[in-house]
């Protein structure tokens, strides 16, 4: 078993590929997992786009997470589901790839990405180009054996404080070692942007719990993450400070901004739209 597929690879197989234009593929969430964060479903689309971009760049450059205009979270994903992935590239050049895409389950869209941009970096600074190409060949032919992913370790947030119902901050200690660093990336470990996004969503859920309750029978749920911007690479052992602030509140929606800082420098930001949704 290729260890990459146990760590942080979320495309089992590419079923259709037009280098520089787009790709289709799928990923099976291992049934034995306790859960699968929805941010990793978005990561799967980003990875599919990355394969289509790298194929167009002859594996000399690869995109990294940078900007996501909008990520619509339409329905949760569960272990055992087969994620049908699509990525459509607007451009794939040596400095950046721009793309959109979606995840479907049984034909229904569960996650949708719009206006995403990934700055390109040299593949060889982050990974072994021959190894990347071999993994690409595998997922374009037989495909990776599904079920290898072992999950991501829980990275707890340290609650700091804030103004009840208006703002909340927390610390996040990036682990010194974790399985996902072996894949993201072998030559230069980087804390994945989608795990930052997941941490942001957790902080937002804490702040949502302090908001006035939505209409009867409903609860605050994240619906769209917009204007996601990751400004720098986060390395193992980095200590981050997260802050969530309420921007707007109506009877059935709320907008919360989230910012991540490392030693006071802004490293990431996004806005999260919460909607009141029926409790199932």
């Amino acid at each position, binding site marked *: 078993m290729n260890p990459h597929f146990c760590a942080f690879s979320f495309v089992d197989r590419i079923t259709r590929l037009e280098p520089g234009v787009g790709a289709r593929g799928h990923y099976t969430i291992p049934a034995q997992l306790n859960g699968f964060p929805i941010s990793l479903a978005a990561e799967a689309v980003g990875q599919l786009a990355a394969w289509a971009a790298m194929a167009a760049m002859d594996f000399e450059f690869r995109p990294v997470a*940078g*900007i996501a205009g909008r990520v619509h979270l339409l329905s949760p994903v569960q272990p055992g589901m087969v994620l049908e992935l699509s990525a459509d590239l607007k451009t794939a*050049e040596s*400095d*950046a790839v*721009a793309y959109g895409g979606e995840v479907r389950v049984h034909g229904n869209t569960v996650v949708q990405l719009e*206006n995403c*941009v990934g*700055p390109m970096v040299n593949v060889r600074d982050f990974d072994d180009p021959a190894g990347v190409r071999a993994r690409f060949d595998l997922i374009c032919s037989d495909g990776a054996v599904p079920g290898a992913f072992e999950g991501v370790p829980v990275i707890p947030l340290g609650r700091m404080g804030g103004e009840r119902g208006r703002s909340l901050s927390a610390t996040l200690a990036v682990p010194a070692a974790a399985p996902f660093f072996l894949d993201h990336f072998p030559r230069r470990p980087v804390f994945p942007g989608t795990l930052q996004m997941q941490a942001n969503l957790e902080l937002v859920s804490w702040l949502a719990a302090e908001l006035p309750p939505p209409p009867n029978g409903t609860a605050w749920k994240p619906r769209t993450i917009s*204007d996601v*911007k*990751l*400004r720098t690479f986060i390395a193992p052992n980095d200590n981050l400070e997260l802050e969530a602030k309420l921007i707007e509140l109506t009877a059935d929606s709320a907008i919360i901004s989230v910012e991540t800082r490392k030693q006071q420098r802004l490293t990431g*930001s996004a806005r999260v739209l919460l909607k009141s949704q029926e409790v199932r």
Partner: protein
Amino acid sequence: MTHNPPTQEEIMAVFPKVAAAMADALGCDLEKVKLDASLIDDLGAESIDFLDIVFRLERAFKVKIPRGKIVEESRGDLSEAEFENGGHVTAAGLDRLKAYLSEVPPERFPAPLSVAHIPRLFTTETFCKLVIRQQRAAVAEGSGQPA
């Protein structure tokens, strides 16, 4: 493509949409995005913001913006060696750059000027002019009317 410099009227016609794209990309108030604001020094833009701004402008104006090619374009017919030497802009290059970035006051060009410093000179108007040049190019190529 025509090489006539963009007119003030053309610049003011695109400015509201350019400013809106910049304010959205930088997460700042629209009022802060003045025509002569330096993206880096006044608005705090970083490299990822430049990418964000360019893609937002492409979507807003439905034109292709030549990313990272402002410097190349400003060089005109000067060769790279004529334009820069050892990472610094030559005297001939500086003349060309000052003409191309005519919206930037002369006192903002440090001497010597390193090539890496050039983006620090870019203002909101620089991007307005970039959009106008691309709109003209699109019209010249018959690919449609500017948005």
